[in-house]
């Protein structure tokens, strides 16, 4: 916006206004210098000479409704003033984007149609921050996305190029198990943790654990081992007791992470859905960042206590078993790499 242009359009000290018309027919007057901050409006004024009167109001794109227009103008009103420091601008931006996601999306759309790139960048960054780190369930809820992928599609979200028959078998097994779990869920009342543990089959427990995205780093390693283990286990039908015990540790860890008391309540299992989607989305074999969470010492004590309780219930000598499992996990490490489904090592 050159000085010359402003001099022509704007008489001495009077603020000039231009007329804007939104898609719903509403016409309003807006301070010229604020509105001209939007490249689209600027072009309309400069190149086509529009906006000078009510009859020649600039018609704004359809995606800009009056509510969005007022938000965009708020943004422009602040930023078009040259005197603000970068810090001030940043802090304004932070406060500005605090709105519900629906409006955020609408605002992004409106800013884009007005070609206001800084605002588009700001809002898209905010949307990215909302999406980051959330489970698919959470994202669907926030953005009201229809859950319209079939079970099969979810299991193979990326059209898994692995033709490994074991993986396909596993996928089918898991899909079946998930359905069974859901049904059982609806029938059961709130019970104690042990009942759940005792009733479900090992496979269910395994799939729960493997889908569990809230593990600590330590248990993550074990879990990896178990995942490999379980692949062979399911095919060879080996010892089940090992898995039972290690399940116990994970259940408790999981619960405590969620700040819920030891007993695994049914409310936990409602997380099965997203948790297993997590697992399947992880078909591409990404690790979950959540794994890096640490348990603080107080919680750790609680976990230890509860683990011992649980072990007692299962009538097993815990410390020795713990040692065994840990060493078992270590031995298994080198083996697991070769079981990697992608077969990349076979190249």
């Amino acid at each position, binding site marked *: 916006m050159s000085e010359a242009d402003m001099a022509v359009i704007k008489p001495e000290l009077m603020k000039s206004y231009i007329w804007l018309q939104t898609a719903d027919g509403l016409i309003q007057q807006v301070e010229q210098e604020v509105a001209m901050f939007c490249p689209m409006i600027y072009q309309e004024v400069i190149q086509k000479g529009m906006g000078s009167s009510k009859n020649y109001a600039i018609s704004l794109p359809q995606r800009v409704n009056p509510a969005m227009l007022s938000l965009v103008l708020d943004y422009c009103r602040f930023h078009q003033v040259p005197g603000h420091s970068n810090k001030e601008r940043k802090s304004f931006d932070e406060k500005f984007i605090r709105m519900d996601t629906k409006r955020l999306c609408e605002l992004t759309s409106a800013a884009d149609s007005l070609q206001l790139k800084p605002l588009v*960048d700001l809002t898209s960054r905010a949307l*990215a921050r909302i999406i980051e780190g959330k489970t698919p369930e959470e994202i669907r809820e926030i953005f*009201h996305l229809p859950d319209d*992928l079939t079970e099969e599609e979810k299991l193979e*979200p990326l059209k898994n*190029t692995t033709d490994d028959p074991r993986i396909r078998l596993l996928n089918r097994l898991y899909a079946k198990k998930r359905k069974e779990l859901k049904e059982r869920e609806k029938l059961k009342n709130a019970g104690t943790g042990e009942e759940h543990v005792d009733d479900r089959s090992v496979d269910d427990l395994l799939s729960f654990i493997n889908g569990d995205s809230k593990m600590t*780093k330590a248990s993550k390693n074990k879990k990896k081992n178990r995942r490999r283990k379980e692949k062979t286990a399911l095919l060879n039908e080996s010892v089940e007791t090992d898995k039972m015990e290690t399940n116990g540790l994970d259940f408790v860890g999981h619960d405590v992470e969620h700040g819920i008391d030891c007993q695994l309540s049914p409310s936990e299992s409602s997380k099965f859905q997203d948790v297993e989607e997590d697992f399947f989305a992880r078909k591409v074999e*990404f*690790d979950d*960042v959540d794994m890096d969470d640490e348990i603080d010492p107080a919680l750790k004590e609680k976990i230890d206590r509860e683990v011992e309780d649980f072990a007692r219930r299962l009538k097993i000598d815990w410390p020795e078993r713990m040692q065994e499992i840990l060493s078992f996990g270590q031995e298994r490490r080198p083996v697991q790499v070769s079981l990697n489904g992608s077969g990349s090592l076979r190249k």
Partner: protein
Amino acid sequence: MKQREGSKYEIEMELDKISSLPGHIIDQILSQLPIKDAVRTSVLSSKWRYRWAKIPHLVFDNKCVSVPSEDQTFGKNKLTHIIDHVLLLHNGPIQKFKLSHRDLIGICDVDRWILYLSRSTIREFVLEIWKGQRYKLPSCLFSFENLIHLELFNCLLKPPSTFKGFRSLKSLDLQHITLAPDAFENLISSCPLLEKLTLMNFDGFTHLKIDAPNLQFFDIGGVFEYISFESTFQLSLVSVGLYANKNARNVSLEAIKWHSFFTDLPHVRRLEIQCFFLKYLADGGAPRMLPKPCLDLNYLSLRINFNDREENSAALCILRSSPNLLELELLVRSEEQNAVEELTYGWVQDHWKCHLEHLRLVKIVGISGVRYELDFIRFMLLSSPALERMTIKPASSDGGWDLMKELLRFRRASVQAEIVYMDP
């Protein structure tokens, strides 16, 4: 697709605002997510199933694979697997590709990915090999025709003989690289649009001839023997750091002529002379003033050893020739005292009129209260009528009081000058 009640479906469609955003915006949102989260969006809904595959920016860094440090081979294999998977499933042009992971040492894998990328219209390429020896880049890298930004860390470049340069390259960042001497010169001169050049820790060449008419930003740090600029009239930000104490006298004829360094940079606005470069420039004596003043120079930063008379003269020469200097920074390079404690070598009388009329800020870091340093400070205070603030930060707190006592006594040409003494 599951059948839904008509109205419920419509309501959901109404509420779902994000899926109907324009394509380039969704690209932008997905590109700002870590690759892991971006790929995960494929389970959200049918519209999002393959949406991620169109994102133009692919970044694979430490956030991709979080593996305990003992298991590096596993991490590396996992990373390889992820990148292979993503590249294979990706569908659309790739504009930016960044690969920087600490476990990345698999050499043949990177070759394969670069080959894949050479078939797309990639514009920005960043490759950082954290460990191991220099990674030799495959020749297909040099066929990235649309490249605008290239950033390499710990690589060995060997352009093929058919290499005609990167026609669109604007920004080049090479750190810890090896390159043959003529290859370097060729590379720079064959990138006509080059605007930004960063060179840190390079080997294979020691004579730098920078022939880049559009160059605006130049940052170099390394060991070299000769540096010259050709037709770099637009160069406005320069930072030169010579990491080793090169004795310029040994490089007799090649030694850079004092004035040519500055005449080759007529429009330089910000200049940083770091490490031993001032010593290198000063070797052999410096003129009183440069043949042509640096009229555009606004900011100057010098790493200087005040005990060295030649460096002092060099610094003064530059200051006298920069009438429009706004900000000055002097960083003391502490070397062993050469016991060349010459008595004031006619310092004060030497001072040819130096009026730094626009100088507002001066920052001096690392002094120890030696005579020459104090003289220099006194000289600065007397030559800058517009000075607003001088910040002094000593190297240690020894002799702090004495230093402050001396500073208090100095006369100042500027009424508004503040002298701020900062704790070491």
